[in-house]
């Protein structure tokens, strides 16, 4: 694996309270992200996700540990030239219009004027804000701010993009659009480091994930390796049978109208239910086997920790 990001033994603590007691936030984070992959960084609130990202971007300084981005020391300007970053709940200069804002940031990358104008137009189109190019950011909704934040993160055509909760505050359509942009970035060979707790989205787009709890990485790897394909239970919706006939065969039973919803864990009991339906001339409306999801894994790990 060609590494886009390598973190080794990252430690960070903050002094809090009146007595300035040290509180450990990161306790030896180590991880590697390969080039061209979407890496999901998962964790409950306060686990240390944002602190890790802030360390990577040089906003806070770790006490110990090493960070290399694209093979270079993380604080070097040459590394920063190739980084894109979208913070959590982005807030930008509200007196600037969308295009003024992108113009300002593109000057920090020393992009020449003609290229700057083309790129800004392109990015506004990609994030769906071309009609709001001359609207002041103070008039932007949260979703629009998230999109303009995404645009500024891509201004320099970065090789690695750090996204901190990029899907927060977006409606389903907005989430899909941002997901599509992230997938397109991967298709273009860029690396995406995605911190989130919206697990469905992570599950949909990430190649590999790491789960952080209380400042420690408790699990990491490819999604299909982490989440087992073993069937946990089967959801059955049927009709034409009496509730009493099914009560002993299922873990939970709910009826609505003439339909009965069953949750069956035991495979032999599922067989019995199917035979019963067949013999009683009942009807199966749906039968869905449920495998372990990332959410199950996440909840289990956080609880265990």
């Amino acid at each position, binding site marked *: 694996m060609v590494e886009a990001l390598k973190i080794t033994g990252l430690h960070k603590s903050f002094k809090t309270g009146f007595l300035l007691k040290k509180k450990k936030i990161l306790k030896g984070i180590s991880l590697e992200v390969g080039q061209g992959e979407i890496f999901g960084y998962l964790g409950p609130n306060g686990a240390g996700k944002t602190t890790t990202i*802030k360390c990577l971007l040089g906003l806070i300084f770790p006490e110990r540990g090493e960070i290399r981005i694209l093979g270079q020391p993380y604080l070097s300007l040459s590394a920063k030239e190739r980084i894109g970053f979208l913070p959590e709940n982005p807030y930008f200069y509200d007196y600037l219009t969308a295009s003024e804002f992108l113009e300002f940031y593109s*000057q920090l990358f020393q992009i020449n004027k003609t290229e700057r104008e083309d790129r800004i137009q392109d990015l506004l189109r990609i994030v769906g804000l071309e009609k709001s190019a001359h609207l002041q950011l103070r008039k932007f909704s949260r979703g629009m701010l998230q999109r303009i934040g995404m645009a500024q993160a891509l201004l320099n055509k970065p090789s690695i993009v750090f996204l901190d909760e990029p899907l927060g505050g977006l409606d389903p359509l907005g989430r899909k659009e941002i997901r599509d942009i992230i997938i397109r970035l991967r298709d273009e060979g860029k690396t995406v480091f995605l911190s989130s707790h919206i697990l469905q989205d992570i599950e949909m787009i990430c190649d590999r994930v790491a789960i952080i709890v209380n400042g420690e990485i408790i699990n990491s790897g490819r999604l299909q390796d982490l989440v087992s394909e073993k069937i946990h239970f089967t959801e059955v919706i049927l009709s034409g049978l009496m509730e009493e006939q099914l009560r002993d065969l299922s873990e939970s039973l709910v009826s609505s109208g003439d339909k009965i919803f069953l949750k069956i864990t035991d495979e032999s009991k599922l067989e019995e239910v199917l035979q019963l339906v067949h013999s009683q001339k009942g009807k199966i409306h749906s039968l869905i086997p449920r495998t372990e999801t990332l959410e199950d894994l996440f909840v289990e790990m956080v609880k265990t920790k």
Partner: protein
Amino acid sequence: MKIKAIALNTFREAIRDRILYVIIFFAAVCFLCSRVLALLTIGDQVKIITDVGLAALSFFGALMAILVGTGLVYKEIDKKTLYTLLSKPIHRYQFLLGKYLGMILTLFVMLFLMTILFLILLFFHTFKLEWQIFAAVFLIFCELCLITAVAILFSCFSTPILSSIYTLSFYLIGHLSWGLETLIEKINSGLGRALARALYTLLPDLENFNIKTEIVHHLPIPPELFLFSFLYGFCYSVFILFLAVLIFRRRDFI
């Protein structure tokens, strides 16, 4: 290029701050009041107007530097705009210098506007342009550059309210510290004199930028005094900005 981009953005931000226009309004009121004050005075009315006008320029300019300057860096931290900015390929000192220069540009424009207002008022009394006013205004501008550096230094680690109080204290101490010079002359010798001397060296002396008396009474301004004041302001500002960079470059933005 990067510092210029940050400076221009800071200018754009500061110039939209309504407080600047409120201060300009009060400065204009003050200029007009100097006219009333002059009417009540026996003697040269122009001297009163010039004296009050220059004092108003200095005071309201300082007020602008303090009220807007102390919020510049803090606002970026508070509103988290700094997060995306510092993730771009810029050094932290470039950010701070950009902020400083942007504020200096704003003060230059504001001071220029106030000076024009003041000159118009003066013109109606003397029917000639008082060019020497610009010498005084230049030194006031040097003073504002120093105050802005101090405001930015405090705003690197403190809230705007506290930074404003600290910077205002710096301004007041700076204009009163010349009293120590008299004290040094009065103390015979020994530890007390050495302490007073050390304190005077340490504290800013903003009276170096005050040539109102020379302007009002049409006294000659020695070029070496002018040069000394300029260099004093320049070196002091560079020193304060250096301290600000030292603090800012190791700061964690939680």
